C-alpha cells in the first residue's frame, strides 16, 4: 500500500506553483487527475512543464461549456481534494469555486495557491517567482547588495516550489482533519508567504533588526570558517567554526600559530575578525589542489566539500548512490523519449511512494476517465466532436509541443 492510496486529487492548476504540489501528492500514492483546458496548459513549453506533471492522469475539458462543467462536477463528487492556482474570481466564474465544490461534495478539501494572497491590497495581482524573491530579501542577500553588488535572483524556482509545498502540507493537514472529523475546508498559500519562509531567520526585537549573517562581495561565504576558498585548481567549501574544527584546520594548514592568536580565541571573536583570519587562510589554500586539501582536511577531521559541477544535473541524476537511494526516476515519454529527473524525496518503510508515469499528453486519459464517470462511448464521441472534451489524435504534435 502507498501512504495516500485511495485519495483522489483534482488538479485544475497551470504553470508551476499549481501543478507541482499535486505531483508530489501523487508521488505519495494519491490518484491525481489533471483537468486541463482543451487548448492545453499554458505552460506546455518544455522543461518547466515536464518537471511538475509526472504521474498524473489527464482529462482535457472545456469548463466554459455546460456539458464540460458537468464532467468536472462528476469528478468533484468523487474527489477528496481540489487544487488550483487560478487568480481571484476565475474559479468562481468557471463554477468551480469553493462554494460550488462544497455544494457538490460537502467534505471536500479545497486548496488555492495564490501569487500574493487571498485578500489584501495586492491580492488581485498575479506574478512570477522573482517578485517574491525581491519582496522577502532573498535577492538582496544573495547578491550581497550592501557590499555594493546588484541583487541576485536564485534560478531554482524558489517561491513556486515553496508555495506548492506549503499547499502539500496544508492539503494533507486538512485531509487528516477531514478523516478524523468528517469536516472538509478551504485553504490557501502564496508565493509571497513562501518567500518569507526562506527568510524566516529574519527578526526584529523592539522594532530593530537582529543581525544575521551576510554574504561577502565575492560571494564566498558568511564567515572565514564557513565559506569557499580558492585552491590551486578550483574551490573548496569548509565548515570549521567550532573550536575543535578550527584548531584542526590550523594544524592541517600548518598555521598553528593562529590557534594562539587572541583575535581567534573563540567563535565570536573569530567571526568578528573574519577578514584578517580569511587573509591568513587564503594564500595557504592557493598552494595545493582542491582534492589535495580536501583529503588533508578529511584526515584532520575538518568538515569540507569540493563543490560539484552538476553538468545540468547529469552528474547528480546518474550518481550511483543517488540512484540507489531512490532520489532519481526515469520513464518513457511519448514525445521526449527517455526522461530522467528527481525521484522519491521521502522514503517510507511501510507505505512506499510510487511514480505513476511520465507527464501525460493533453487529454491522454479523457476517455478512460469519462467511462469511469459513467459516460458511454457515443456520448464521449459527441462531446469530443463538439470540442467540449479532447483526446490526442493525429494532429496532436501540431497542436501541442508536448
Amino acid at each position, binding site marked *: 500500500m502507498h*501512504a495516500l492510496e485511495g485519495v483522489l486529487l483534482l488538479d485544475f492548476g497551470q504553470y508551476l506553483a499549481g501543478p507541482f504540489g499535486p505531483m508530489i501528492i501523487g508521488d505519495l500514492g494519491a490518484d491525481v487527475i489533471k483537468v486541463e483546458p482543451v487548448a492545453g496548459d499554458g505552460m506546455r513549453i518544455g*522543461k518547466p512543464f*515536464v518537471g*511538475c506533471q509526472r504521474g498524473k492522469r489527464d482529462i482535457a475539458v472545456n469548463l466554459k461549456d455546460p456539458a464540460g462543467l458537468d464532467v468536472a462536477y462528476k469528478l468533484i463528487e468523487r474527489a477528496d481534494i481540489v487544487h488550483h492556482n487560478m487568480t481571484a474570481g476565475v474559479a468562481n466564474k468557471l463554477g468551480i469555486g469553493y462554494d460550488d465544490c462544497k455544494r457538490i461534495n460537502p467534505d471536500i478539501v479545497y486548496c488555492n495557491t495564490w501569487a500574493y494572497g*487571498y485578500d*489584501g491590497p495586492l491580492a488581485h*495581482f*498575479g*506574478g512570477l517567482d522573482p*517578485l517574491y524573491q*525581491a*519582496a522577502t*530579501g*532573498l*535577492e*538582496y542577500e*544573495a*547578491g*550581497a547588495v550592501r557590499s555594493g553588488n*546588484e541583487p541576485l535572483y*536564485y*534560478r*531554482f524556482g524558489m517561491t513556486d516550489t515553496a508555495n506548492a*509545498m*506549503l499547499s502539500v*502540507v496544508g492539503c*494533507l*493537514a*486538512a*485531509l*487528516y482533519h477531514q*478523516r478524523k472529523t468528517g469536516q472538509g475546508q*478551504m485553504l*490557501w498559500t502564496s508565493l509571497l508567504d513562501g518567500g518569507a519562509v526562506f527568510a*524566516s*531567520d529574519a*527578526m*526584529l*526585537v523592539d522594532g530593530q*533588526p537582529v543581525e*544575521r549573517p551576510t554574504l561577502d562581495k565575492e560571494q564566498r561565504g558568511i564567515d572565514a570558517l564557513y*565559506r*569557499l576558498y580558492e585552491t590551486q585548481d578550483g*574551490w573548496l*567549501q569548509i*565548515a570549521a567554526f567550532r573550536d575543535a574544527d578550527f584548531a584542526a584546520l590550523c594544524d592541517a594548514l600548518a598555521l598553528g600559530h593562529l590557534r594562539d592568536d587572541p583575535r581567534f580565541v573563540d567563535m565570536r571573536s573569530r567571526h568578528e575578525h573574519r577578514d584578517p583570519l580569511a587573509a591568513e587562510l587564503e594564500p595557504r589554500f592557493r598552494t595545493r589542489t582542491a582534492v589535495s586539501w580536501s583529503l588533508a582536511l578529511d584526515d584532520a577531521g575538518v568538515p569540507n566539500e569540493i*563543490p*560539484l559541477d552538476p553538468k*545540468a*544535473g547529469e*552528474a*547528480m541524476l546518474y550518481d550511483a*548512490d543517488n540512484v*540507489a537511494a531512490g*532520489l532519481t526516476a526515469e520513464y518513457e515519454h511519448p514525445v521526449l523519449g527517455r*526522461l530522467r*529527473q528527481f525521484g522519491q524525496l*521521502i*522514503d*517510507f518503510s511501510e507505505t512506499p511512494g510510487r511514480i505513476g508515469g511520465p507527464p501525460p499528453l493533453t487529454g491522454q486519459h479523457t476517455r478512460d476517465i469519462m467511462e469511469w464517470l459513467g459516460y458511454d462511448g457515443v456520448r464521449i464521441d459527441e462531446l469530443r466532436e463538439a470540442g467540449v472534451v479532447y483526446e490526442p489524435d493525429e494532429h496532436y504534435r501540431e497542436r501541442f509541443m508536448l
Partner: protein
Amino acid sequence: MAGALDGVRILDLSWGIAGPLGVLLLAEQGADVIKVEPPGGDPFRAYAGSHVWNRSRRSVTVDLKSDAGREAFGRLADSADVLVESFRPGVMDRLGVGYDVLHAACPRLIYASVPAYPPGHRFADRPGYDALVQASAGQQFEQPGWRMGPIFLHMPMPSMGTVFLVPSGILAALIARETTGRGQHVTTSLLAGVFLYTTQIWQQVEHASAGYHDLMGKSYPPGIHQQMIFECANREFVHASVMSGLPPKRSQDEILGLEDAPDPFTFMSMPPEERAVINARRREAFKHHDRAELVAEFQANNHAIEPVITMEEALSAPHPQLAANGMVAEVDDAELGRTTQIGVPINLLGTPGAIRGGQPGVGEHNAEIWGELGYSDDALSKISGVV
C-alpha cells in the same frame, strides 16, 4: 478554535533548520510539539533564527545516556504520535532509541529521520552542514553569481527544501496510519531537499534539442529573470515582472518615458545582444525615477513590480500584502522580549493555525511534562540531567 492537527503529539529531537522549521508548520496547525533536548540544550540555539524555528512548542531535557533518562524517554515516546530526529544515520541506534527499538515498543509511532545524506549513501558519515551539501550536491555551481565558479548561497537552500519534505512525510504517514493502524520509519535528507529545487533545471531527456535545455539553463550573465532587476534613483533596486495577470493600462516603457520599445514577450524572445541594447536604455531610464513613486505608478497601471528589500525591511515597514496575509507577527520571546517574526504561512480557513508562543527555554517544561507522565519531582534531575 480547533486546529487541524489537534491531538497529534510530536517529539522533536532535531537540530538546525529543516527539522525544527518543518515541525513548526505542524505545530502551528495544532500539533502538540515537545522539543526534546540534551541536558545542555540544542547547540543550534546560538543562532538567531532558532528563536523563530523553535517557537510554538514546549521543551524538556533528557539525558539519554542514563538509564533513568532512557526509561523516561520510552514513556514519553509511548505518549507520542511522531518522533523527529536529524542525527547522522546510526547515532540514535547507538543511544538505544533507534527506529527498531522504538517501533517494537511503540508500533503506532511515526519515526521521522532527517540526516544530511540518506542511509547507505557514500556521504552518509560525512558532516552535514548546509553549505557542505550545497557544495557536494552541485547547487553552488548551478547558481551563476558575480564572478565565475561556485558561489555560496546565502539562503540555506538544502535545508529550505527539506523543511517541506519533513511535514509532508509525517502527514502522509499519519494519514496512512488511519488505515493500517501502524507507524513506520519516514526518512528524508538535506540531499533530497536539494533535489526538490531541480524540477526546472535538472532533466535528462533523450529527444530534446539544445533549445529545450537552454530554456531555464545556467548562463552568464544570469538569465531573463535577472535582467528584470533595475536600479532606481539613490541606488535602490526593483524587480519588474513580465506578467501580472491583469490588463496593463499604460505600458512599463510609457511610464518610464521610453518610446518605440518592444512589448515584453517580443523582448523575451530577442537575441541576447538586442536585449542588451534595449535593457541599457531601460536601465538608464529607471535611474531617473524615485523607487517608491515608480512602484506605485507601475502597480496603479496593473504592472507587477516589487522593491528589492531586506526581509527586515519587509517586517519593519511591513510589506502591505505580507501584513494582510498575517505574515508579520508579534511574538513574545522569553529571552528577547517583544519580537516581530514571520506568521503562519498555511491558511486553513476551517481550522485556522496560530503561533503558540515564543521559543521555550531549555527544559522549561521538565516539571510539567515529566510530571504528566507520572514522575515525581525527585526523579527529575536524573531524567533531565539538570540539577
